[in-house]
């Protein structure tokens, strides 16, 4: 067989993880080609002008856990990485009340004290405990996971390192850690707080992107994500990327190109060529083929292995495991272009409370009800919404005086028990706008344009299987040394020279970049 072109490495998919992986490999001197199906780069971390003058962060909308060492390693700041911090998390409530949590602890205490004096004072203690837990989690997410059953020295050392980090916590925090990794978000928060109102938005961060309720065990540890930024020394890591989240991807792409990688858009890979248990190259939809020593896929595990490689090349046990691998996309996105700033009934001024996270999660029961509706296959009529108005902090995304309201919505189950998403899309969008309008009465009059992305749309548009934004459910049995499936946790696949670098590998989830980086290091044989 002869190939059109030869490369050292081909990266399939130019999501942020794929681009980071490519950049690391190119930096190490490899000849890298990145192939992207769409006309834009970034995968789900993408900015697109959907309506004239308005640049939307179509899918992923805030930058949170991006690993600071990647920014330094790839010199991303020089390539345009520019994140504006958010100062506030605002939770509008019915009956004209609202709760805003600020970076300043005293200001937050004063706000929370309206609902519970006890909670107001315990809040810093909770943050402290979570910061300590974050130090433990950092030991987990910044390295490739150790596996079970292997007595290889490096593996035993990795476990020992984790053991030390755990022992370092001391008995009290060890209890907290045990609880954190097994409890539900709501139960875990009950250990500290009494006010269901404060617990609402806190618990909500435990369910983002998963098809679980706030009372479902295993959601507590996701709360950690909010405290991870603090311990990286990168203050205020929560923020808007200037020009939309596509800006992060573009910075990664520029870095990759600067190191010598080649990126082709509108190059949809149809097949990975496997010969003798080795991946040899890829074939595009248009028939072009490329040869490479190593193929890295930024697609999710099922799409890569079943879609591009094909079941005949895979061990039957793996096919079975991939079938069981849970996706269960549960979230949707509603993007609105507005001709002015909407006002909240409870805090009518255009203030700093609108420049951060806006969370529609009035209390814990509200979230649980949203889940109860969705788990049988209907979208939540009163959903949990996480909204941001990036144009209030970043004027580059909308024309002067106009604004963007970007809403992440849960739950919207991929598998509907009645109807299809094409039929339900608009009704779902209406429900979201209605819910928001009950807090922002003037919202409906200001809408210029609306885009509703259902899990089905996300699958079509971004190739997210079943619309899962994390390339597979973040549930305990699919994490750490079991992500995506036991025995494949080291970015490797049963096909020699075919690697995974997407969110479906450890640690996965969010615009973190760690999967891409760790995959690159695995390929380069660097210790991780």
């Amino acid at each position, binding site marked *: 067989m002869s190939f059109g072109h030869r490369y050292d490495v081909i990266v399939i998919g130019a999501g942020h993880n794929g681009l980071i992986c490519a950049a690391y490999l190119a930096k190490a001197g490899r000849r890298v080609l990145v192939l992207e199906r769409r006309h834009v780069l970034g995968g789900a971390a993408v900015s697109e002008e959907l309506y004239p003058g308005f640049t939307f962060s179509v899918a992923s909308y805030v930058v949170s856990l991006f690993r600071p060492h990647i920014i330094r390693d790839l010199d991303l700041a020089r390539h345009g990485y520019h994140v504006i911090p958010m100062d506030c998390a605002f939770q509008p409530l019915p009956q004209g009340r609202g709760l805003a949590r600020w970076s300043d602890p005293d200001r937050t205490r004063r706000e929370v004290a309206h609902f519970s004096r006890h909670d107001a004072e315990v809040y810093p203690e909770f943050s402290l405990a979570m910061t300590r837990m974050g130090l433990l989690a950092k030991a987990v997410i910044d390295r490739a996971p150790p596996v*079970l*059953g292997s*007595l290889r020295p490096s593996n035993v050392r990795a476990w020992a390192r984790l053991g030390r980090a755990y022992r370092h916590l001391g*008995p*009290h925090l*060890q*209890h907290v850690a*045990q*609880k954190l990794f*097994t*409890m539900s978000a709501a*139960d875990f928060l*009950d*250990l500290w707080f009494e006010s269901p109102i404060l617990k609402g938005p806190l618990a909500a961060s435990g369910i983002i992107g998963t098809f*679980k309720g706030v009372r*479902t*065990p*295993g959601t507590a540890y996701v709360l950690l994500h909010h405290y991870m930024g603090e311990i990286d020394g990168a203050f205020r890591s929560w923020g808007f990327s200037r020009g939309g989240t596509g800006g992060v991807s573009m910075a990664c792409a520029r870095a990759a190109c600067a190191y010598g990688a080649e990126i082709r858009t509108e190059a949809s890979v149809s097949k990975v060529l496997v010969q003798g248990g080795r991946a040899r190259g890829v074939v595009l939809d248009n028939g072009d083929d490329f040869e490479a020593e190593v193929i890295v896929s930024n697609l999710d595990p099922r799409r890569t292995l079943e879609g591009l490689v094909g079941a005949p090349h895979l061990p039957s046990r793996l096919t079975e495991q991939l079938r*069981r691998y*849970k996706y269960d996309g549960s979230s949707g996105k509603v993007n609105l272009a507005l001709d002015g700033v909407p006002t909240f009934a409870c805090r009518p001024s255009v203030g700093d409370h609108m420049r951060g996270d806006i969370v529609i999660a009035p209390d814990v029961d509200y979230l*649980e009800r949203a889940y*109860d509706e969705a*788990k*049988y296959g209907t979208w939540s009529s009163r959903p949990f919404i996480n909204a941001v108005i990036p144009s209030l902090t970043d004027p580059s995304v909308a024309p002067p005086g106009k604004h963007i309201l970007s809403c992440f919505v849960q739950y919207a189950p991929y598998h509907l028990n009645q109807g299809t998403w094409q039929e339900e899309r608009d009704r779902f969008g209406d429900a979201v706008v209605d819910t928001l309008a009950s807090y922002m009465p003037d919202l409906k009059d200001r809408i210029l344009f609306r885009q509703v992305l259902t899990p089905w749309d996300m699958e079509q548009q971004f190739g997210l299987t079943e619309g899962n934004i994390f390339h597979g459910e973040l*549930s*305990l*049995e699919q994490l750490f040394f*079991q992500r995506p499936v*036991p025995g494949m946790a080291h970015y490797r696949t049963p096909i020699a020279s075919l690697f995974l670098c997407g969110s479906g590998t450890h640690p996965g989830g969010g615009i973190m970049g760690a999967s891409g980086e760790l995959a690159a290091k695995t390929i380069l044989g660097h210790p991780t």
Partner: protein
Amino acid sequence: MSSPWDTIVIGGGLSGLSAAVTLARADQRTLLLEQRAATGGLAAPGRFDTGAVAPPVRQDNGMLPLGLLRHLRLAKHGLTAKHAVPALHVLLQEGGCITVRSNASQTEASIARHHAADAKNYRRYAGLAQKVAPALARLLQHPGPANGIRALPLILKGLRWWKMPAMHELLRLAPMSAQDFLDQWFVTDSLKAALAIPAFQAAWGGPFYPFGALHILIQEALSSHFVTGGMAAVATSLERAAVHHGVTIQTGNRAERILLASDGTVRGVQLADGATIAAPSVIAACSPRVVYQQLIEHRHLDQGFLWQARHLKSRGTTAHLALLLNSVPEALAPRARCAPGIEALEQSFDKMKQGEIPEAFALEIEVHADPPALSVLAHFVPHTVQGGWTSEARRELAHRILAPLKPHLPGPVLSSRLLTPEDLELDYQLPGGHLYHVERSPDQMLAQPLHGWKPPAKGLYLASSGTTHGGGSVCTSGLVAARALLRAKKQSRLEMRRTRRF
């Protein structure tokens, strides 16, 4: 301080009784205090309105640790065990019934009448349970934490687990929900729902909730020894053994407070009437929530410890219904399960969460012969129902529990006795009304003695379903606590002798 007692055991349930017998056999002067009129706790038989004996709340789940109980010689006191697992009838929603027996091929045949693929998969399912059983048994029935040199065998054992594929499999399966776990094998909805029942008993959660698989596996793996006469027989024989070995049993006597000296050592027990009984050690065989929230004075406890104790979860979702019948319903004997289906059960759970009485329940049925009676455990009954447990609400609940059983009963129900989770809380001193005292959620299973989760008072030991060894595996915690106490006594005797010598 001289005292007629070496040890006071608070609570005369199965754990308390086994602790007392173990102590008395080691010549400890033991006093057992039980607040109810009879010992046995949840295993004690009740009474119907007619005066007939009603089956106890606790059903025999086959997890009585006979190996551990052997040295109590309960056989001498009238306990006989069967090492075969008795048949389990699963009543299907769509009519008909599957009988699960210890013989897998018989079960296969029974399932095959309804669904061919399920029948084939049953063998694999049963095989898995057998594969992980040893790992689970070691984890759950190990006699307790070890330090220093005694930890060595544990470490060696740990290394063996490390290489065991069953252990890896367990790690993957345990966090699954009952639904995901059973979906791997079965299609028949009510079979899945029936097999999922142990998950509902153990922890707060519906069939969609993670960690259901863990409890199903524990039940399947450890359920091996059934006793003749059910749990009431265990209670009776333990009480006989206690009396035989010289335990003083005081029923109708409630401990109000565990008295501690200022250095945190146990001094004795204060009773409800204000009288105090001195003793150097106490085994509290009652709910940990009662111990930490009522019996011990808080100023003797560490703040960090109290923080944990205050947040013990024990949300009971199980009601017990005892039915007196004309004759034994053969279709259900000796035990049966009935559940509407996975999704329907989850809906029941949602209803329960909102404080409503669901339409359908997951039922565990145990048939008693003398007098002919049924013991039914119904899952997803709210602890407090909206509007309170009025007589109408109770009637409605009994009616809905009974509805799926009606066709299988040989005659009319002569009398019935219903205990809602709230009743269980009040009658049996179970805060929250959970049958295992505290929920067996993974955090609470882990957080027990392994990491300093033993009572911080010297001479106080905890023995109940609420401890690590509790849950379905009754008696174990009593034995473990009694042995720990004896070991501590022996050690302090040795130390005293040593100091005297020098």
